């Protein structure tokens, strides 16, 4: 797959430099003064160079393989009248363009850049501001979306759109984008074999990243913070999520990462800091949680029903109000070799592993699960006494939910 992308890019480079590709300049005082005109004049593999200035145009249709390049301050102002750019041909490249003022609509999904049924497209270094949808990409494959800056001022979920909305796509590369104040930062539905990397998604009113029905995808090194409800990953299979940072998702119904109906995922080296719930897993099966860092969360981990064969190992659980909340049978989920800051055991043989097992579910956590109002007793002396007596002789908490090899030292 990757080879074919590189080949295509090379071919298109060769094509643009050696075949008689020409550059069409668009500026306010040039012969060609509108972008639509410039595109109409261009033929295959040409470059349309848009000089600095504000172009009040909308629904600009690009149906041939060309490059549309701005100079950084080349602004398309859609004046809330419709879409910005519409991409309908393979091998289109959009660079350094700014698109602004995409109006809200309750019947149409107006987007700054709309991409439909194409392959090998590149959108990079673009700035999209005050948008409804930033990029709306449908049924397209082998695209690259890189170094873009997308922002809006979403207030309500119902009247706002997503930053990068991918629907029914495959083999996309989305990296180094910054997304803020949208509904969902990045939204994927029926997207497969794609990579989401090094993005920064924050202050979105719903999710930083939203996965639905998307299989075989990976996301690494992204940062999600101060979003309405964190990151949601639902109904997807075979995912890899590593080195991401989920933080500051403080809200009454907020979490760092929500997993719902997930099969075969690797969740490794992520940092979850200061979230109401670090990871909320519901119906997650065969998921490996390794080397993650849970710091200062309300609940580090909330495991609800229908979770099977999950493996939690070598994670750090530090200063969370509740380490684990668990309200179903233990099933065959496994906690082993984790570091727990609340562990009070000892290590006589100095092998770095605590000699007595750790019970991650406190009695209080169990009670709060049953009757949420009891949260008012958080950190009260009475509760500490109860927790202690439960630790000595477990009655209510599942007695086979144990970390048999709690680490004495923090994992780096």
């Amino acid at each position: 797959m990757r080879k074919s992308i590189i080949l295509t890019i090379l071919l298109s480079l060769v094509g643009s430099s050696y075949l008689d590709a020409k550059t069409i300049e668009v500026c306010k005082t040039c012969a060609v003064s509108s972008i639509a005109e410039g595109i109409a004049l261009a033929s295959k593999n040409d470059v349309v160079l848009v000089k600095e200035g504000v172009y009040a145009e909308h629904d600009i249709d690009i149906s041939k393989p060309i490059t549309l390049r701005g100079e950084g301050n080349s602004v398309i102002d859609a004046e809330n009248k419709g879409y910005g750019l519409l991409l309908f041909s393979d091998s289109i490249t959009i660079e350094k363009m700014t698109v602004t003022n995409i109006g809200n609509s309750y019947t149409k999904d107006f987007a700054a850049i709309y991409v439909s049924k194409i392959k090998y497209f590149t959108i990079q270094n673009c700035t999209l501001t005050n948008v409804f949808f930033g990029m709306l990409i449908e049924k397209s494959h082998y695209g690259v979306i890189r170094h873009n800056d997308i922002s809006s001022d979403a207030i309500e979920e119902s009247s706002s759109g997503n930053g990068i909305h991918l629907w029914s796509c495959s083999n996309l590369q989305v990296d180094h984008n910054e997304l803020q104040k949208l509904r969902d930062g990045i939204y994927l539905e029926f997207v497969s074999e794609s990579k989401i990397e090094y993005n920064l998604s924050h202050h979105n009113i719903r999710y930083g990243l939203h996965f639905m029905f998307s299989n075989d995808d990976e996301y690494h090194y992204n940062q999600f913070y101060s979003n309405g409800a964190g990151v949601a990953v639902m109904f997807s299979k075979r995912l890899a999520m590593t080195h991401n940072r989920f933080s500051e998702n403080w809200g009454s119904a907020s979490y760092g990462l929500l997993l719902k109906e997930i099969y075969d995922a690797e969740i490794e080296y992520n940092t979850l800091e200061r979230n109401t719930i670090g990871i909320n897993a519901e119906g997650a099966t065969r998921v490996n949680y390794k080397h993650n860092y849970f710091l200062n969360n309300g609940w580090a981990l909330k495991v609800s029903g229908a979770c099977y064969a999950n493996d939690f190992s070598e994670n750090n659980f530090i200063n969370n109000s509740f380490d684990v909340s668990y309200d179903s049978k233990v099933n065959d989920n496994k906690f082993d070799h984790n570091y727990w800051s609340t562990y009070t055991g000892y290590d006589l043989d100095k092998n770095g592993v605590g000699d007595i097992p750790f019970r991650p579910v406190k009695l209080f956590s169990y009670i709060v699960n049953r009757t949420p109002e009891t949260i008012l007793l958080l950190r009260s002396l009475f509760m500490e006494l109860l927790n202690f007596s439960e630790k000595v002789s477990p009655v209510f908490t599942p007695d086979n939910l144990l970390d048999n090899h709690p680490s004495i030292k923090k994992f780096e």
Partner: protein
Amino acid sequence: MLKIFKYIFFDLVRSRWTYAYFLFYLALGFVMLFLSNDVSKAIITLMNVIVVLTPLVGTIFGVMHYYNSREFTELLLAQPMKRSTIFIGQYIGLSLSLALSLLLGLGIPFLFYGLLRSSAIWDFGSLLVAGAFLTFIFVALAYIIAISNENRIKGFGYAILMWLGLAIIYDGLFLISLLVFDDYPLDKFALIATMFNPIDLSRILILLKLDISALFGYTGATFKMFLGTSLGMVISLLVLCMWVVIPTWLIYRIARKRDF
């Protein structure tokens, strides 16, 4: 009243019990800060200590001081002075000296640690405010018990029982009632029940400052409205003030009618 207050206050400030109390907090503060190296963690541990210990010390000191200075009180009563002046003066002198031990004992290590430059200053402030409030409340409650009981043993017994009741038993009953009436909407009841216990109230006040408020909000809309906004903070503070004012007024009333 000012004279009585001054006398009691300076007498207590020089007493070894106050020093011991002050030194205890001083040591606790230094150990917490320099061993844990993390201000917010230290504050949470200190909260656990303060919420339990200040009421206990306030209670015991209050009862002890009243019984020990009984002869002095009788001497004062022989003078042409209003009763309220004597008792309220004594009460304020005692609680202020205890509160001062707490403030200085914990304040000094934190100042050394560089609290003024740290962002935790407001969390720490709320901790001290809650501690001071608890001292005033429990000294007043202890005074009420001591004034209405001639018998020292009984007085001590009731005072300890009162502390035990508010620190532990109340929470136990609270928990049981929440679990039993699980099927009913409980959030309003839970909030109101919290108001009736100064220990719970100050604990929640500190927790709100420590940003665990989101955890409370998770429970329901009422909690979110009350505890997730500054409304909760303001009301908690007001109720704590009521907890000081009402017992003080009771001391005044009981003392006025009491025979010596």
